[in-house]
């Protein structure tokens, strides 16, 4: 047989297998037809009775292309997930070889790397204008799945891999070159070894919110936290067959179907979850979480699609150009040109230098932050009336003006102003004494004689203990104290704790085992009422409600049930309060409302609370009564809260605020891996669990059994994630101590 025909046949067989794989082995008439045609061709060839084998194979190839185009039209979201996971899918090395003109892999090579799942390269593109050649460097960072290479771990990056990515982002920032991030990950590897998966992702997101070079992210497989670790970018492009999702469809199905102990979800349920989570590029473009889709060939890009790489190169360069031009001093004409070139064949002829000045860099960062803060506002139910919003805006404006006068003007010139005021007061005293002298002479009666005993006691006695307004009796008791029953401490086997009587435990003992100190979970109200000064709590934004933006089946009822049960409209309560007269703004994630999961409403409330704390120049406390992660039923509307809230926190901290996080009960996943984990001061209440993924998810994704106390806060303390562990009964005193020591005298350092 002709070698060249054999090659063609081999390629067609590959295409056929690929097609079969991406439809999950389901019977498909079109695929069956292609198979029979191919078989027919092979048989004819064996008998050697073909007139023109080249023409036949060319026809066959046309038929393949036709069927591929036909199948492309009815790809389901789950098919796209299978495309993305297929070993023949393009990977980052293919992109480096075909999109960039030259590259050097840095931070390790292949398996000789601290984490082969994270690939970093210095690459350059060459552009020509006339006879002039421009070399433009970029830092390429992304997860490398390899084509089925074991050591890549399927692009599931360990914490140190994300740390490496952050390290080289800093290098790019120093060198002033743009960063291109390629997201090819099913999710981060959920191990809690130093620095902890969640902690490292939080650091990455926090840093990316302030990196002063253009960042372009290209999503192919955007799995949850792993994607966000390198996904906070000025421009987010997405490959047309990729997915970007808060959790894998299998994970969502396991949660939706309430499966436990290694049970498998049915393929129908998985496909159902994939459809309702709206994970495709088209959905995400519609929501505004990505800026542009890069069209792939039919049934997804594979390494031999060279035209696709060319298109990808054009789009990536254009995105970088646009980002740079948008923040340059005079972007008008070239910005217009960059937009016009969208339809042009070749943008290499219009090179744009990617360097930025100091002002441009500031503008770039601000633009990126604003972009993220604006996202997903539509996804929560905001029931505030128009006039309420108007009034709030008006009040915020005046409050802003007042605080600007108070902090930006008065505090800066405080010494001068107080000196002038003292001078005036002294002058006035003198004038007053002179003027009052004639009337004083007329006054009758004795002068008060000081009591000598009192004077002696004042001099000799020790100073009095000043009450620090400690709460000696609880203001709020858990309703469970009314139930006449005993409870067993979970540590009873280890420490021999005796049974505890409910009315004691939930009232006087504040939910703490009196034998071993184990903390039973308490209601969120317990903290609100017992930690802050009495009657000092003022809740705001109560009308922002959790909704069902993706119309996930049966979810409206679940949200409504949670709202009725907890009497809160969302899982986040934001309020202003005082601790011993120290004013602060607090956001509380409540574990009682859908497990404390964070969706668009919770994110929006958190952001507004951070902004309020910034405006008021007050400390910002995130009290995490409990959070199970991002609300999966909201899909990317939930996921996008990770970068959004982190941006808000970044702005708050950078403007000089004190951000303290306190974890109670169980805190896991997205929020810990972003806006909570990025705080420099994090504390936990005893017996709390902190981590990235729960034991079930770790078992499912990595196959590892984890020790029973793997997520205990003491482990988080040992690896440096949190700074201290507090007894629940001392939260108030410890919080005050933390505010005073970390916030300084004015509670607003800098």
């Amino acid at each position, binding site marked *: 047989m002709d070698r060249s025909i054999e090659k063609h046949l081999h390629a067609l067989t590959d295409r056929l297998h690929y097609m079969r794989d991406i439809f999950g082995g389901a019977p498909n008439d079109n695929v069956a037809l292609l198979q029979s045609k191919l078989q027919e061709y092979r048989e004819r060839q064996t008998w050697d009775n073909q007139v023109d084998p080249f023409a036949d194979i060319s026809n066959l190839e046309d038929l393949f292309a036709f069927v591929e185009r036909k199948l492309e039209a009815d790809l389901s979201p789950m098919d796209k997930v299978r495309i993305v996971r297929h070993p023949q899918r393009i990977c980052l090395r293919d992109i480096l070889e075909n999109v960039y003109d030259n590259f050097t892999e840095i931070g390790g090579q292949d398996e000789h790397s601290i984490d082969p799942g994270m690939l970093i390269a210095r690459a350059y593109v060459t552009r020509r204008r006339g006879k002039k050649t421009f070399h433009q460097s970029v830092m390429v960072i992304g997860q490398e799945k390899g084509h089925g290479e074991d050591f890549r771990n399927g692009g599931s990056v360990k914490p140190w891999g994300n740390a490496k990515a952050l390290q080289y982002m800093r290098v790019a920032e120093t060198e002033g070159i743009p960063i291109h991030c390629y997201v090819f990950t099913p999710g981060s590897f959920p191990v809690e070894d130093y620095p902890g998966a969640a902690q490292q992702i939080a650091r990455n997101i926090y840093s990316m919110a302030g990196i002063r070079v253009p960042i372009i992210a290209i999503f192919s497989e955007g799995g949850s936290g792993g994607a966000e670790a390198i996904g906070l970018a000025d421009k987010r492009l997405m490959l047309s067959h990729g997915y970007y999702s808060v959790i894998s469809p299998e994970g969502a199905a396991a949660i939706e179907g309430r499966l436990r102990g290694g049970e498998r979800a049915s393929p129908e349920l998985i496909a159902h979850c994939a459809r309702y989570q709206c994970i495709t590029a088209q959905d995400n473009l519609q929501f505004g979480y990505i800026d542009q889709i890069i069209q792939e060939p039919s049934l997804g890009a594979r390494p031999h699609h060279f035209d696709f790489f060319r298109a990808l190169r054009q789009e990536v360069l254009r995105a970088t150009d646009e980002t740079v031009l948008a923040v340059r001093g005079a972007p008008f004409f070239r910005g217009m040109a960059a937009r016009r070139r969208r339809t042009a064949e070749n943008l290499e002829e219009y090179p744009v230098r990617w360097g930025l000045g100091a002002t441009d860099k500031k503008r770039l960062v601000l633009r990126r932050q604003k972009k993220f803060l604006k996202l997903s506002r539509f996804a929560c139910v905001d029931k505030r009336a128009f006039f309420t919003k108007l009034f709030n805006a008006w009040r915020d404006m005046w409050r802003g003006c007042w605080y600007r006068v108070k902090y930006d003007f008065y505090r800066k010139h405080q010494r001068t102003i107080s000196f002038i005021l003292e001078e005036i007061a002294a002058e006035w005293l003198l004038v007053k004494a002179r003027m009052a002298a004639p009337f004083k002479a007329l006054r009758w009666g004795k002068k008060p004689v000081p009591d000598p005993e009192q004077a002696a006691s004042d001099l000799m006695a020790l100073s009095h203990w000043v009450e620090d307004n400690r709460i000696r009796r609880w203001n709020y008791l858990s309703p469970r104290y009314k*139930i*006449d*029953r*005993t*409870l*067993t401490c979970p540590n009873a086997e280890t420490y021999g704790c005796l*049974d505890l009587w409910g009315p004691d435990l939930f009232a006087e003992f504040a939910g703490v085992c009196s034998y071993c100190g184990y903390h039973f979970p308490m209601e969120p109200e317990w903290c609100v009422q017992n930690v802050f000064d009495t009657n000092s709590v003022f809740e705001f934004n109560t009308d922002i409600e959790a909704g069902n933006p993706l119309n996930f089946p049966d979810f409206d009822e679940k949200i409504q049930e949670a709202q009725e049960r907890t009497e809160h409209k969302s899982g986040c309560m934001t309020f202003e309060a005082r601790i011993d007269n120290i004013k602060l703004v607090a956001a509380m994630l409540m574990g009682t409302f859908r497990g404390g999961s964070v969706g668009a409403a919770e994110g929006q409330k958190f952001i507004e609370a951070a902004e309020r704390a910034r405006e008021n120049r007050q400390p910002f406390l995130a009290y995490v009564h409990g959070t199970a992660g991002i609300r999966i039923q909201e899909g990317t509307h939930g996921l996008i809260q990770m970068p959004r809230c982190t941006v808000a926190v970044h702005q708050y901290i950078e403007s000089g605020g004190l951000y303290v996080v306190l974890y109670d009960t169980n805190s896991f996943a997205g929020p810990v891996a972003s806006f909570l984990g990025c705080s420099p001061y994090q504390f936990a209440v005893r017996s709390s669990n902190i981590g990235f993924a729960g034991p079930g998810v770790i078992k499912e994704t990595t196959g590892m*059994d984890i*020790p029973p106390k793997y997520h205990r806060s003491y482990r988080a303390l040992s690896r440096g994630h949190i700074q201290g562990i507090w007894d629940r009964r001392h939260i108030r005193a410890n919080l005050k101590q933390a505010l005073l020591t970390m916030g300084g005298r004015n509670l607003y350092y800098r």
Partner: protein
Amino acid sequence: MLNITELLEQLKASPYEEIHITVPHTGHVSFTNIQPGDVVYGPTGAWKDKPGTQLAFLDRERNPKPICASQKGVISDVRRELDGSFVEAGTRLVTMQHALTREEVVNRLLRHSLHLFNAPERAKYYFVPNVDKKIRTGGVRSVAVHDGMEVFIMSRMKREVPLAYSGPGGCIYEVYFKHTDNVEAGQPLVGVCPPDQLASIEDVIMRAQTEWQEE
């Protein structure tokens, strides 16, 4: 040396250990659906963190507490007459037969035939350097001990005290402690075998290891 062989024969004749499951405190008992003849399992998992088969509930002050099997075995008796009644602490609920494993049999035989030297108090223990050196080069059985010989160092709160062996002379057959872990008072440190019995003990242990059928 007959007695160890006899013991092995006895164990072979009745290769079970009877385990009585009792209640830890007073309360109302309600049994789960277990019958004599059922196979139940002890705690499982790499860290024994998953509790064994549930046998009954003990309810005191509306606090239902599960009572689980502590070992793998077959239930031989369930005191159904107690179902729903109030019982005192220590009342037997279930009797089960635990089939002895090879390791358990060997352990029993050794404990029976060796002279066990116990830890006098809770501490960490090491061998003295020359004994330790001998163990490293020739294994534990190369070390001969006699009454009054300094064999151990008892270390507690960084205070190290030499500890002399007391008991009949012989060679060390088995070591029951790790130098990294604390040993409770009264727990055995080593098992010592008189030199004349060494061959026969080794023979019986070998027999137990090869002939014992695990269920």
